[in-house]
């Protein structure tokens, strides 16, 4: 049974969309990630136009991160002050991101740029995760215990405009979180992702936030960034497909809950190794499209689609 998507202007099998949303929701619940970095390339892969895929993914991530934030909030694991500072940088970044997206659409390079960005992103994340998780698995097999440093002191502690973050037990400058938020906002606007996989390591290593507070805070900030990105795409690129969004949202939140339950039964490092392999496979798929000569060198688009 197929369903006609009014903005994408194509009809597509509804069960394909439901299973895509379910699987990506499952993965995001299992690994604690937003899933946008898998959702956007997969939507493009099944034939959704790039602009619709980016705009609609952002909307789907809003739902996923609201659902996730509530769980962390109830346990007091969200640093609201840090979240708001990240959001203020992020909103500026998302305006820049959507403008970049609009400009690239106009000159016809949006597909290529998105592919290159996704390839770089997925390849580096996949490799890092695979290296890290295989080391942990190796240490586990050798029965080694690794000592972790508790607190990091770096340049983030020496900048002006210092302020106290009580929830995170930090006293640092507001400049690094604004910059981090800004960069995530740009990525979110151009790629339709939440950016938690960049945000989480950045908060741990650059800001020195405690790991327990990081996931909830990053989810909290992603709600706002992806909400702004959704609105900007709805009003500037007209590419937000509400029908597609609703199907993906419902299937992904159900998938995410099943993912959370499954994750509790497996070891973290095994999960990460598994995700790393999935991410690398998607990266290889994107690379093939970029580097292998296309069957037809020509491609067309409708001008009205972008304006």
């Amino acid at each position, binding site marked *: 049974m197929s369903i006609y998507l009014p903005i994408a202007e194509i009809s597509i099998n509804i069960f394909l969309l439901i299973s895509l949303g379910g699987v990506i929701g499952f993965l995001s619940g299992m690994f604690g990630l937003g899933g946008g970095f898998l959702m956007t390339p997969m939507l493009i892969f099944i034939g959704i136009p790039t602009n619709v895929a980016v705009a609609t993914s952002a909307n789907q991530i809003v739902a996923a991160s609201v659902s996730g934030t509530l769980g962390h909030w109830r346990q007091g694991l969200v640093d609201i002050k840090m979240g708001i500072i990240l959001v203020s940088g992020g909103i500026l970044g998302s305006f820049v991101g959507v403008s970049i997206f609009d400009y690239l659409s106009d000159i*016809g390079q949006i597909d*290529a740029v998105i592919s290159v960005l996704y390839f770089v992103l997925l390849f580096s994340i996949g490799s890092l995760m695979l290296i890290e998780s295989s080391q942990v698995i190796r240490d586990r097999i050798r029965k080694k215990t690794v000592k972790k440093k508790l607190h990091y002191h770096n340049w983030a502690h020496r900048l002006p405009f210092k302020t106290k973050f009580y929830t995170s037990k930090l006293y640092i400058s507001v400049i690094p979180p604004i910059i981090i938020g800004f960069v995530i906002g740009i990525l979110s606007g151009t790629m339709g992702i939440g950016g938690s996989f960049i945000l989480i390591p950045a908060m741990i290593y650059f800001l020195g936030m405690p790991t327990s507070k990081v996931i909830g805070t990053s989810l909290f900030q992603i709600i706002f960034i992806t909400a702004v990105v959704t609105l900007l795409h709805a009003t500037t690129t007209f590419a937000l497909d509400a029908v597609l969004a609703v199907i993906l949202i419902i299937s992904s939140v159900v998938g995410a809950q099943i993912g959370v339950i499954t994750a509790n039964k497996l070891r973290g490092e095994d999960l990460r190794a598994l995700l790393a392999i999935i991410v690398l496979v998607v990266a290889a798929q994107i690379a093939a499209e970029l580097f292998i*000569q296309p069957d037809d060198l020509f491609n*067309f688009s409708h001008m009205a689609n972008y304006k």
Partner: protein
Amino acid sequence: MNFKSFSIIGLIYFSLISISSSLVIGSDENEILIDANFSGKDLLVFGAFYADPSQPREKKGDILIEVVGPKEDIVLRKKESFFGFWLNSESVRFKDVPSFYYLSSTSELKDSFFKENSIGLLETSQFPELNWSLITTDWGSVSSYDEKQEFFEALIRNKSYENVFKKTSDEIEILDGNLFKTNIPIPNTVPVGVYDVNLYLILNNEISKDYSYNFTVKRIGIENLIYNFANSFPLIYGFTSLIIALIIGWISADLFRRFRKA
């Protein structure tokens, strides 16, 4: 409908007084509706033709059916390799290109026929000047004749991949010598608007009779509502999508928390 039935009666009447040949159309589909389940449609075109009865059956003439969709503006881009990456480079803008073009005949017609009667869009390699004059083209940085030709051919090739440009000469069924019937596949990617259907009866390489009508492709129901809403009130549309996302996210978190506690 009344006007159409009237015109069909008119045609039949007309065919009685002109004994040499006639063409009557029985198709009455004048709307294709895009709803949530739309996945393309076969347009049925049928009718009767009456050619010179003194001739043997295979010489009774040919039927040619042309379907032309609403005009659209297209950017055609060519990919080139930059340090191993395949990126879009040169681009050409075509204005007023038919979004859908279908040409079907009972037998293969000569190129000269299409040229003389200014019918056809798929004959560019033989007749670069044919009908392309109707299309405004912004060539950008493309200048050489060969390169322009390459872009023309690529436009038609890419449109053919999407099944929106097609030329065929073996899809019209002839029943009982005088009745014809064909199904024209309208894919789910076609835009909304008015589509012209032109039918010709061809005798001795010349148009003997012709008949034209049109049908409209339109969105209906929720598909139409969402599309119009998204384009007329983008901000409200964006907020509505957001609120739906917030509500579903909230409900799911709550629902599953209770579910796990129970």
